[in-house]
């Protein structure tokens, strides 16, 4: 994530709009604070509404009632919810995300181990889908209703409709079990990344392709495209220089959203491929009513989603100078 930020700031400086955009970035980052507070507040209270007794869950079967009451007292679970919330926020602001109720391990440490795995998977999946979807979308639009277009759109429809756990299993059966090209799961080097990344990429490829195609179709009907063609600009140049740049804006919005969502962990794909990512961690923690771990995951999820969106907004400015004007 950091690399991206550096890269974008470099681009912005190069374009000599650094001052305004930098201010914009800082403003957006500050705006993140109330968002985070709101999200943590909501999640904290929603978890507290779910049934189940944390103390008896920690102690397991056969725990005495006295011990359960004692532990509840020790953990401060008998205090009013608002006090518990205050206590959590207090330590969070000091940078302490607490320890897991379920296994006593540090939340920050656990997430620190899991999030990079999710990041690896997500970034590979997004790159894959961008590399596939943008060209298909552009060609589909420029050759509307051709065989290529129809085929592309049918594939996109299939990609969007198929559930990821099913695709995952089919890929495993085909490429691991029958062909033996890739490992069937786990995280052991580059080869183990390919099948899960591809599985994740399929759904996002489908939606990015469809968005690129429709916005491209809209743009190539604009007057300025006709003008460019009339001036004798070559067809390729019209498409890549005049049309694509404008058509990319909606596509990038979709890419950003997909990216953000995937960073929150793709539970089904992670489960099918035994990938130790943050999605599985979060679902497991919700089942165990492990409040500190759930909150930790939600914080990371919200942060990464917001930062990706911020990057997308900055990318808009890079693609469309008119949007840049709005940042001032």
């Amino acid at each position, binding site marked *: 994530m950091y*690399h*991206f930020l550096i*890269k974008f700031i470099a681009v912005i400086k190069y374009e000599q709009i650094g001052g305004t955009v930098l201010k914009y970035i800082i403003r957006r980052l500050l705006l993140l604070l109330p968002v985070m507070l709101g999200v943590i507040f909501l999640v904290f209270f929603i978890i507290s509404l*779910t*049934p*189940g007794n944390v103390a008896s869950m*920690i*102690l*397991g*079967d*056969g*725990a*005495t*009632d006295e*011990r359960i009451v004692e*532990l509840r007292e020790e953990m401060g679970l008998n205090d009013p919810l608002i006090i518990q919330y205050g206590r959590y926020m207090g330590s969070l602001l000091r940078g302490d995300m607490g320890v897991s109720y*379920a*296994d*006593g*391990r540090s939340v920050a440490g*656990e997430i620190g*181990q*899991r999030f990079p795995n999710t*990041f*690896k998977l997500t*970034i*590979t999946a997004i*790159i894959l889908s961008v590399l596939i979807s943008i060209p298909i979308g552009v060609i589909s639009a420029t050759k509307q209703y051709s065989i290529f277009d129809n085929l592309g759109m049918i594939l996109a429809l299939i990609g969007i409709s198929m559930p990821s*756990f099913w695709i995952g*299993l089919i890929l*495993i*059966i085909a490429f*691991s*079990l029958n062909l*033996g090209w890739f*490992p*069937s*799961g*786990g*995280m*052991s*080097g*580059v*080869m183990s*990344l390919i099948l899960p990344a591809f599985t994740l990429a399929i759904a996002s490829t489908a939606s990015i392709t469809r968005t690129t195609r429709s916005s491209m179709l809209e743009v190539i009907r604009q007057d300025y495209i006709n003008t460019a063609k009339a001036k004798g600009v070559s067809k390729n140049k019209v498409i*890549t*220089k005049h049309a694509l*740049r404008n058509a990319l804006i909606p596509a990038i919005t979709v890419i950003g959203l997909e990216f953000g969502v995937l960073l929150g962990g793709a539970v089904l794909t992670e*489960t*099918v*491929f*035994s990938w*130790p*990512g943050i999605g*599985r*961690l979060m679902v497991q923690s919700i089942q165990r*009513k492990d409040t500190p771990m759930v909150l930790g995951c939600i914080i990371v999820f919200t942060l990464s989603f917001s930062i990706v969106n911020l990057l997308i907004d900055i990318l808009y400015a890079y693609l469309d100078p008119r949007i840049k004007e709005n940042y001032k």
Partner: protein
Amino acid sequence: MKYKTKLTVYFAVILMCVSLMAFAGGGQDVQEQTNDELTVALSAGITSLDPQGHNDTKSEKVSFLVFNRLFKLNTDFKVVPDLAESWEQPSETEWLIKIKEGVMFHDGSEMTAEDVAFSLNRSKEMPKVQQVLSEVKSVDVVDKYTVKVTTNSAFAPFLYTLVHAGTSILPKAYIESGDEFANPVGSGPYVFTEWVSGDKVVVDKYDNYFDKNNMGQSSKITFKVIPEGTSRTIALETGEVDVIAEVQTIDKNKVSDNGELKLHEVPSTRLNFFEMNTEKAPFDNQLVRQAMNYAIDKEAIIIVALEGAGIQADSVLAPSFLGYKAGPYSYNPEKAKELFAQAGYPDGFEITITTSGDDRKRMAEVIQASLMDVGVTASIEMLEWGTFIDSAINGNFESLVLAWTSNPDPDATLTPRFFSGNINGMNFSRINDPKIDQMLKDGREELDLGQREKTYNEFHEYVMNQATMVPLFVNNILVGSNASLKGVELSPQGLWNIEKIHF
């Protein structure tokens, strides 16, 4: 042109960053597995490396390899000594246990009675396992290799409590070093090497292990987490893992039909039952409860809900337990109708079956169909798990479908489930019977094995006559392995003695 070049450069830079980030750290650990190493798939990750910091069967598998206990269970559920050399009882409440000399921890220090006393005392303090030794009053060091354990009262299951992972012996010096189990030190046949959360745990063979007859057979064991059942089976088929500790029932035939694989099957200690609330009509009537035992078709449940991977249950425990005796019932709808009429319900009645989860829902549906044949209309109420358990504990149900996995000593199940003091606890049927309470007490305190067996025999007979539940079935444990593996053993608690498995 300028734009095009910029775009290309831009993509190239991102691609480079990404490849660097994505593949950094990857690639170097492409597994070159020799035949000397073993990979075992688990359905969930371990929760703690501290043997006293968890109470689950996944973490237990790792704890059993890295640590030792004073006693262990063999595959027939009998207690056999592990670290213990000899033991005697100076009085009903006192146990003198002498440990083997020359047991070396992985850090090279020798185990002494000091470590044993420290570990057992620590176990009583650790939240997850404090209930295991709750009957232990004190643990004292007698000499370098002997400890004296005093129990609150005569307590027959004592040796069984010492087989629990929570009573593992830890080096006192290590715990006091404050390492917090980042690099746990035990005395077991394997040394901890690596734990990648949610992915794998790796242990290496310990060459200096004290028990030369039970040395680790593979040089390295990797436990891989594969949560999805189908993916687990495929990993076994592709050879990425050598053993899967849980084969999902629908893959049973896939494994057994494959010549390169082997399916191991054994009844577990997990009893599934239909429990009746004895405080609520019509189940406050013993005849009705007995009739229910004739009315439910257990074979149908095993086929529908379990794909046949189980055995019919006939009493309140699985058959592998001390003093087990099957109840007098068999599937007989006519007999059930007769009893219902005798109990004053000639036209049947309506009940609600409360449960949670898909498997149990299927079981409840088969029960519903069985009951329809004898004139009982059952409706099924599905609850979220936490709410379900709360209702079960608080008696807010008429009947429920649930399962219970038992620890090896019968008392560990029977007291929570039938003692009147555990109403509003695990005594879901809320049976309150002084005779049951007395029999439970006798069973706990009877130190003579033969007499104890007799007590439990009578208990089974009496409690099945009270008919607080309809025992449905005991799940089979399904373990899949590579057919060329040797030493795969199962106990009613699943894959056992993993240190003995090798190619």
